[in-house]
């Protein structure tokens, strides 16, 4: 497979939040193996890029106490992190183990747990989830005691988190007994959870036909050893990165890797990112960007620091409010992001970015001269926006806008206005919706 800047852009969008023109050039030259190494292991050059950290009204963020700042805090990481795949996988796990309506300190702690274990083994990740107060409170695992086991967590653990199918109501009941023992308590102003052995049912349970005095740690092993688990989890990971259907041979190969590596997420994701199907249709991308991927991507590829609070409500208007997924099943991805409201919010985002959000963009648009040709105008706008993919039809439409402007006797001021308009159209146009 030839390896070009287009391949790098596809890989960096799917595995992160887009590539800057410099990254695209660099990793096109270095090759696919180097690009994958960077994404999977980092380059050892620190945690963040040179983009300045987020500041709102000149002040650093207060993600714990200021509503909306927790969203900007995570968005800021997506924009600046030198481990974009880790942030993308943190987003994947945030959706997979969807948790909402819990106190901000607990949600931020859960987010950090996802980040630290994003590419670890699934066993370690699930262990973190099982001990996480936010999800324990959300799914009523906290307060589930031997005298009254709550089935909610056990049911979602099998249905949504690990298996999808292959269990019955007896398994749900028995697993609920095995998961009893966490209770609520107040600590540092908020309600959190702790393990109380006296609330745990230490009797014998039968789960998936196996019998023993099972507890939470045993449940993690039982669900991950279930024959339905590996196909379930590799299938979900595949569809997060690739729009092509997962064929049986590839599924078998991913399952084999998952099992042989002791449930290594990094091993499976690495194999998916190297698969030719990820690079299909480079000239007609068909994966719809989630709102946060769109916003983080625009900021990252244009090297724009976060200075606007409104990114947070704009993402909500686009249908994605981080830390508040709509249900335990997470968000509906794909075409669900293409509502009329979402498209309007994308236009507003482009306007905000062009008018006040990006200093780089304002400075660059001021270079525009009255004697630029329509083609020079379009090329300059695309360069400013980080050279995103655009379809031939879109390019023709942008050239049409620039030609109309030319016909009206341009001045330096109007040339700059045209640059801003073209940038705005590139960000809010239909091509920016896909990657």
């Amino acid at each position, binding site marked *: 497979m030839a390896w070009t800047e287009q391949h790098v852009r596809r890989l960096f969008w799917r595995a992160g939040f887009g590539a800057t023109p410099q990254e695209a050039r660099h990793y096109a030259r270095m090759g696919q193996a180097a690009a994958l190494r960077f994404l999977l292991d980092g380059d050892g050059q620190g945690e963040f890029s040179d983009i300045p950290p987020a500041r709102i009204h000149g002040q650093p963020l*207060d993600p*714990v*106490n*200021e*509503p909306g700042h927790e969203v900007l805090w995570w968005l800021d990481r997506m924009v600046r992190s030198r481990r974009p795949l880790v942030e993308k996988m943190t987003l994947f796990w945030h959706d997979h183990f969807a948790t909402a*309506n*819990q*106190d*901000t*300190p607990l949600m931020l702690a859960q987010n950090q747990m996802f980040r630290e274990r994003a590419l670890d083994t699934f066993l370690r990740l699930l262990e973190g989830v099982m001990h996480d107060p936010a999800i324990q409170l959300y799914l009523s695992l906290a307060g589930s005691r031997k005298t009254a086991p709550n089935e909610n967590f056990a049911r979602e653990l099998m249905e949504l988190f690990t298996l999808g199918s292959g269990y019955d109501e007896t398994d749900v009941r028995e697993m609920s007994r095995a998961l009893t023992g966490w209770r609520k308590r107040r600590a*540092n*102003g*908020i*309600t959190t959870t702790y393990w109380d052995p006296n609330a745990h049912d230490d009797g014998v349970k039968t789960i998936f036909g196996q019998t023993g005095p099972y507890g939470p740690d045993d449940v993690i092993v039982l669900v991950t050893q279930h024959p339905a688990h590996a196909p379930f989890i590799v299938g979900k990971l595949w569809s997060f990165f690739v729009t092509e259907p997962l064929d049986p041979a590839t599924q078998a190969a991913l399952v084999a890797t998952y099992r042989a590596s002791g449930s290594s997420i990094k091993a499976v994701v690495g194999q998916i990112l190297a698969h030719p199907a990820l690079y299909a249709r480079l000239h007609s991308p068909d994966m719809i960007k989630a709102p946060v991927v769109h916003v983080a991507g625009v900021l990252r590829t244009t090297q724009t620091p976060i200075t606007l609070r409104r990114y947070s409500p704009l993402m909500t208007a686009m249908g994605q409010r981080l830390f508040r997924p709509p249900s335990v099943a997470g968000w509906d991805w794909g075409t669900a992001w293409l509502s009329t409201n979402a498209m309007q919010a994308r236009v507003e985002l482009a306007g905000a970015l062009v008018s006040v959000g990006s200093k780089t963009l304002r400075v660059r648009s001021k270079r525009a001269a009255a004697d630029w040709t329509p083609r020079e105008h379009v090329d300059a706008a695309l360069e400013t926006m980080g050279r995103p993919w655009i379809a031939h039809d879109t390019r023709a439409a942008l050239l049409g806008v620039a030609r109309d402007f030319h016909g009206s006797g341009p001045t330096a001021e109007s040339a700059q206005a045209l640059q801003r308009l073209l940038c705005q159209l590139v960000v809010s146009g239909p091509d920016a919706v896909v990657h």
Partner: protein
Amino acid sequence: MIATALAMMAMAPATTVGMSAREYRYGVYRPVVRAGTVTLVLHNFGEDDHDVQVRGPRGYRSAVSPDVDPDETIRFTVHLRRPGRYLLVCTKPGHAAKGMTARLKVR
């Protein structure tokens, strides 16, 4: 001197305290603050309306905040000049008795 102190207090940025409300408990994300202007930012995760009043040393009583509707957030600023232990109380009938109070320490 008093005028200078008042001017400095006016200039000092308010400390923000994130809070949650649900039936029938508060979460307080910054349980210890410095004396001065404090802005309580209260989000309602519950199903009922809630509010907050701050009660403190020497019979201090703040005004009662506006109601915060379910899934809404309000900002409510109080001036807590004396160090000591304060109590955050929901004044809706029966809510405090069911546990809807929380502590805030002012240093």
